[in-house]
């Protein structure tokens, strides 16, 4: 709790200052061009490599080769690098759920795989059940499947992931009304946003949703409600043991988003630059520190979450991580948002 207490003490003392009119356009461009589009480019490339690896392995009479496992990990981590984007092409045709349907409390994935195996023949994956199209289904085939006998399902899953990644990238960047334009030129008729404030809200929603997902789904579900009641099989990607790497990739993605894709510590872009241009230097320094400390804590978890949650020695580290991710989210919602001119409405919350 110490970290949280310090953060709250500090940020309540920060002065409130006005936002400069030229901030939003440059900020939206930094976030989109510096973070979002590069993240989708990486996702497209890594899913391409995954599809190739699966094809090669299957041609050689195997599925779960080291090359496939490595390509699979890189592709899923690249998805973690992009899943803080929750608006635009990734929402078309349920793509975000087709890429990763999780959590799967009703075991839909297993049932859908059984269906595909019983039917036989190359399935039309893109129109199959949502759960069977993405990483969790492919993970089952690679890590607890029937080897080469599952290639007839694994190959189209990998190819379809690459197709979806390519479509998302294309729809962001190409054609008459790319989604990029809807965000960087709001009100131009290119899309659904009328002001930079709306564009920023759309982007910031994803960053906070990603932190909420780390907290609620990725950490707290496997940790369980009380200590000693951990549920290791509720960890994301426990079969491939990627759970903690995915959390780290999520945190890295939100940090990269915040910094607008800045590549060196001394380079100021994105929200960091916007805060500094608005005179919010102390808040910017605090955010940089908060991201650094949180990521350092995540690095201390030296094994998959499914193993970490059942090790009492890891409990304090995971508790600290939960506290720090909560504080990061609170800072973004309560301080960074208002400082750049966006604030969630009291009544605009989901579903009520």
């Amino acid at each position, binding site marked *: 709790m110490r970290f949280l207490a310090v953060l709250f003490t500090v940020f309540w003392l920060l002065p409130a200052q006005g936002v400069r009119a030229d901030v939003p356009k440059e900020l939206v461009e930094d976030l989109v061009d510096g973070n979002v589009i590069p993240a989708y480019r990486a996702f497209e490339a890594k899913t391409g490599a995954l599809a190739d690896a699966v094809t090669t392995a299957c041609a050689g009479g195997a599925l779960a080769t080291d090359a496939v496992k490595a390509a699979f990990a890189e592709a899923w981590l690249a998805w973690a690098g992009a899943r803080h984007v929750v608006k635009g092409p990734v*929402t078309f045709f349920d793509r975000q759920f087709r890429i990763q349907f999780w959590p799967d409390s009703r075991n839909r994935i297993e049932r859908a795989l059984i269906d595909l195996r019983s039917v036989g023949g190359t399935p039309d994956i893109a129109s199959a059940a949502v759960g069977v199209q993405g990483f969790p289904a492919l993970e089952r085939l690679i890590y607890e499947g029937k080897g080469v006998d599952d290639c007839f399902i694994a190959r189209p899953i990998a190819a379809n992931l690459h197709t979806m990644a390519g479509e998302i990238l294309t729809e962001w960047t190409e054609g008459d009304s790319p989604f990029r334009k809807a965000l960087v030129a709001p009100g131009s008729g290119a899309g659904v946003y009328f002001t930079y404030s709306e564009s920023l809200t759309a982007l910031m929603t994803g960053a906070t949703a990603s932190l909420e997902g780390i907290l609620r*789904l990725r950490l707290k579900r496997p940790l369980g409600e009380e200590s000693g009641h951990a549920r290791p099989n509720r960890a994301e990607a426990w079969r491939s043991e990627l759970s903690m790497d995915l959390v780290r990739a999520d945190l890295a993605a939100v940090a990269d988003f915040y910094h607008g894709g800045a590549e060196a510590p001394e380079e100021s872009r994105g929200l960091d630059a916007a805060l500094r241009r608005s005179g919010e230097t102390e808040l910017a320094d605090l955010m940089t520190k908060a991201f650094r400390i949180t990521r350092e804590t995540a690095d201390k978890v030296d094994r998959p979450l499914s193993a970490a949650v059942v090790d009492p020695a890891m409990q304090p580290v995971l508790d600290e991580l939960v506290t720090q991710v909560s504080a990061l989210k609170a800072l973004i919602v309560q301080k960074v948002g208002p400082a750049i001119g966006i604030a969630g*409405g009291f*009544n605009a919350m989901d579903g*009520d």
Partner: protein
Amino acid sequence: MGDALLSRRGILAALASLPALGAFPAVAAARPVVVTTAKLAAGGFGIVGIDADGQASFVEPLPDRGHGVVPRPGGDDVAVVARRPGRFGYVVAGDTGAVRAELDLPDTRHYYGHAAYSADGRLLYTTENAFDEDRGVLGVWDAAAGYARVGEIDSAGIGPHEVRRAADDGSLWVANGGILTHPDSGRIKLNLPTMQPTLARVAPDGTAAERVLVLPEELHKLSMRHVATHRESVAVAMQYEGPEGDIVPLIALTSTQGTTTQGTATQGTAPRLLDLPEVLALRSRQYTGDVAFDPSGSVVGAGLPRGGFFAFWAAEDGRFLGSVEAPDGCAIAKGREAGGFVISTGIARIGHVSAGPNGVAVRWTRAPEVAAFDNHLMAAP
């Protein structure tokens, strides 16, 4: 510019040096015309009664953020339940806010935020999540027995949000949003690709719910959340879970009449779907937060908090009548005269609306005791 800022700061400094507002003799407020939950200016959350001039008739604290408020027929009890996934429920006096009963919710349930009384005022129904069973229920409470819990019925869908009693036959209408959530995962939505919202009807005897309105397959992501009733008319307000650029209808009108049962399937009257002008549709973010009929039943109004406006339609033919700009405006309820509504906003305003074929007019009041009005309100009994 600098001068203006300085003088504004000067004013703020002068205000800050004054004694707390509570030290001034309060303006005596009249009877409440509106009862609603709110975030209080003094901090925390509460249930408040507001008079016609915007003054608070009463302010009673709640343990956390409340949501729906509903009057008991034939009395002045008002039931209030927690915002999801909260677990408190109270019955208070409609004129003073004094607590008369507390609802004792089973550990395996949490509230979804709304409640309705049976026509005789005997039973109270609350929408609840049976979260370890992935199903929605209506909790049943007996007002005559000190609001003891006397049963529950399946809501015939996942995520029942608002329940309302139809005015003509006393049947209850439940908007099952279709979205699966679990308290372990907070408000994160777990089943969007497969969600199937439904409108369900509970017969006046309160025994079981049956599905009466299922949207066409291409609209399965239109989550039904709120319900308004007038005589045989039922209005359903929806929230779209698909891509932002899609333009979909947000209000469906149907009727308690003409509901037929064939075998095990119940078929409701085909809904009329209401449209917004395109600019407003895009601004709305495809999200409604509340819906109401005026006292004559000729006008339907809805609050669209993400768009920052209220919209009004003619119930007869679905014609759009006009809108009222209202930042963070959400709550809407029947007013006192034909075409009349009361509305409220997250910036502590209450509006008195008159809507009809000639357009829409509003008179705003501000409530100094309130920081933000919640998503729903009711006209005081």
